[in-house]
């Protein structure tokens, strides 16, 4: 068995050391965000300032990275969250992860602070920290042109340099956007990390792995979601569905229906703006949009950006959405937190509380404002702190749409209450993916449970959170998990009686979903292409006898370690919350269109095996073999 090799770089002392992850740790935590959460917990003290010299940034991969398995270029960045004070994990599909592995390492741990702007180069296993003063100030596009094209790169833009709290990290045009990874690198004076090597990652059983990959790719290509919808319309293809179910945030989450949604839909984007689709390395899904901005062929927006710079600020201008997306990328910023913060600023103006020069429906000036935020110019420095910070200064807390301090993604949870529970409980704050993405089973997917029904949502949220945690930890894209929903349901359509029955069935089986974690991993002692093919791939890559049950438990273990980190940093059940707008004010005349966290949270904690204060019980830690 090949154990992961990590690099530890102390930027203050310039000391570089290598260490191998112990076999027991590897078997339990595998890699990516789950292993990184364990390392961050063990290697940093409680109460650490994420922008201090003592803070730690873990950049790592999962076993799948670089092997050629479908959609396996994702790498992870784990650090202390600038938005929430808890744990942060940010995921990216750029080439850096694959190249880091080819250079001989599975992860890098950065500590300390360089005395001047620096660039870390990892070349064929050798590490050097070089002067990058000449690169400081460059945008993310220009700075990447300074390095050879075939190098894997991660870079920060002006937003990271100026410590914008939601600054992201770019690898090519892909972004590790959420939670402020760019600012953490900026605080360490690191402008770029590059990696290049030529050694292919080893696979334990290459023959069986290749056969599995071949079947898996065909499975993904024949699935209506991963084989047709995502390549054709990208994630923006969800706009129409979300709007139809009133789950498209509009006017800073005051509504879930936008009358001009068709003008910003994935279908309209594909018909009028799309040059072609592309994909991350090793991805057969190829959901990336290519569009023209400033006469350049650039990456187009994801669903989140379309929603938050479209309906949520009352704009149906696709060209402007593309431009804002591009400017945010070259400045190095998370478009979700940026969009949520700008919408909040618009509402502050609407209420006559503060004027940041932004109003609903007026978007022409936003690209310039995005630049001002990234340089923290004048009053825009306040917007660089996010909506929670602004609400603490100006009030209007009900309109600051965040959970634990991280802005919500583009799903209106009052018409997708399970998604609301996910946002509230997500370890990294208001994140749809870490939150379990129940919107897929409520408002934007083919298989729909009643989006206002609270029964069964805690059980489904736990299931999805754990499954997605494990997929991410292994180095795969979460979109590969879409294929868990049987293709037949897409072919029958959402209104067919059988599809509706399946939706109801998901709620009926909640007692099983609730109790099964007590019997994990023994309850699922097999691997299946139709459930989570990732488990079989992991088995062939690592040689570990991975089953679907063990895979699900890996996700559960990761989720619990992240939770323990948050608890240590002072985040408790009180922080599993959403703004009053979403929990107390019905979206429409139906009084049930609110997120009833009071109903769902107790059940959620029970299914998780957590105590009332939101911390894992001793029994759960014993079952998961978590020793901290």
């Amino acid at each position, binding site marked *: 068995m090949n154990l992961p090799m990590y690099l530890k770089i102390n930027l203050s002392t310039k000391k570089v050391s290598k260490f191998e992850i112990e076999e027991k740790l590897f078997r339990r935590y595998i890699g990516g965000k789950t292993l990184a959460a364990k390392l961050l917990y063990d290697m940093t003290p409680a109460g650490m300032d994420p922008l201090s010299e003592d803070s730690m940034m873990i950049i790592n991969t999962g076993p799948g990275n670089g*092997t*050629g*398995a*479908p959609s396996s270029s994702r790498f992870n960045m784990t650090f202390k969250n600038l938005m929430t004070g808890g744990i942060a994990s940010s995921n990216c599909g750029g*080439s850096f992860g*694959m190249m880091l592995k080819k250079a001989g390492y599975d992860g890098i741990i950065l500590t300390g602070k360089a005395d001047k702007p620096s660039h870390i180069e990892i070349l*064929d*296993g050798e590490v050097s920290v070089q002067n990058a003063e000449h690169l400081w100030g460059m945008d993310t596009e220009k700075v990447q042109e300074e390095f050879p094209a*075939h190098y894997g790169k991660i870079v920060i833009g002006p937003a990271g340099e100026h410590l914008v709290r939601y600054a992201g990290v770019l690898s090519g045009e892909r972004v590790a956007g959420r939670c402020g990874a760019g600012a953490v690198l900026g605080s360490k004076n690191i402008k770029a990390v590059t990696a290049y*090597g*030529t*050694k*292919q990652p080893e696979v334990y059983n290459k023959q069986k792995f*290749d056969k599995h*990959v*071949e079947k898996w*790719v065909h499975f993904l*290509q024949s699935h209506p979601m991963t084989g*047709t919808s995502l*390549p*054709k319309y990208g994630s923006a293809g969800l706009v129409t569905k979300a709007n139809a179910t009133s789950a498209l945030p509009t006017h800073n989450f005051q509504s879930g229906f936008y009358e001009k949604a068709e003008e910003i839909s994935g279908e309209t984007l*594909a*018909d009028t703006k*799309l040059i*072609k*689709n*592309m*994909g991350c*390395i*090793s*991805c*057969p899904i*190829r959901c990336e949009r290519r569009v023209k901005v400033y006469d350049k062929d650039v990456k187009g927006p994801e669903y989140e950006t379309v929603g938050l710079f479209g309906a949520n600020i009352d704009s149906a201008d696709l060209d402007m959405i593309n431009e804002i997306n591009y400017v945010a990328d070259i400045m190095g910023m998370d478009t979700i937190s940026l969009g949520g913060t700008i919408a909040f600023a618009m509402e502050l103006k609407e209420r006559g509380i503060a004027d940041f020069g932004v109003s609903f429906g007026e978007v022409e000036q936003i690209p310039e404002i995005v630049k001002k935020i990234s340089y923290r110019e004048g009053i825009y420095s306040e917007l660089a702190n996010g909506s929670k910070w602004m609400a603490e200064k100006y009030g209007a807390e009900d309109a600051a749409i965040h959970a634990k301090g991280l802005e919500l993604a583009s799903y209106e949870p009052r018409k997708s209450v399970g998604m609301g529970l996910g946002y509230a409980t997500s370890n990294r704050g208001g994140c749809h993916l870490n939150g379990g993405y129940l919107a897929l089973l409520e408002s934007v997917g083919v298989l729909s449970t009643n989006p206002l029904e609270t029964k069964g949502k805690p059980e489904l949220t736990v299931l999805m959170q754990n499954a997605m945690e494990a997929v991410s930890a292994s180095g795969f894209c979460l979109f590969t998990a879409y294929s868990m929903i049987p293709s037949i349901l897409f072919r029958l359509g959402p209104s067919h009686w059988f599809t509706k029955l399946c939706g109801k069935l998901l709620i009926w089986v909640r007692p099983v979903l609730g109790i099964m974690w007590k019997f994990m991993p023994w309850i699922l002692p097999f691997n299946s292409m139709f459930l989570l093919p990732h488990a079989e791939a992991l088995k062939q890559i690592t040689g570990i006898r991975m089953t679907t049950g063990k895979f699900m438990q890996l996700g559960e273990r990761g989720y619990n370690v992240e939770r323990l980190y948050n608890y240590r940093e002072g985040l408790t059940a009180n922080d599993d919350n959403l703004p009053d707008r979403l929990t107390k004010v019905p979206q429409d005349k139906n009084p049930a269109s609110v997120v009833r966290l009071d109903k769902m949270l107790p059940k959620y904690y029970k299914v998780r095996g957590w105590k009332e204060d939101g911390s894992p019980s001793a029994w759960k830690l014993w079952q998961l073999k978590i020793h901290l």
Partner: protein
Amino acid sequence: MSFFITDKCIGCTLCRKLCPVGAVEGNLKEQHRINEKRCVECGVCGRVCKQKAILDQDGKPVLEVPRSEWKKPVVIKEKCSACSMCVWNCTKNALKITEPAYQGDIRVFAELSDAKRCVGCGICASVCPLHAIHMEVGEF
């Protein structure tokens, strides 16, 4: 054990220029050497060496092969998923993903777009997860 350059080398730099992974180091008219950490044992260096100065991993001299007989990648379109593993791993930029045939066309695949750039290293074929590339001698 990677490939090795003997003292027959006259430092013509041809292998250094063609090596797809930048594993050959050395100046003009000086004996070159191969960086073991980089070498992927593709044999490109040996195929262009007129001096037979390059030994393979078994210590045997690699024979020169005329450029017209170099194997080059042929993509089986039906198998290719356009995942771009080959394109990303080709440092010679000889491969690319085809352009869509019409607005909304999602059926694209990898192709050898610039045969002159290709040195026949075979890295593309070795990294293709679907074994959709095989190396052939032919007209490109």
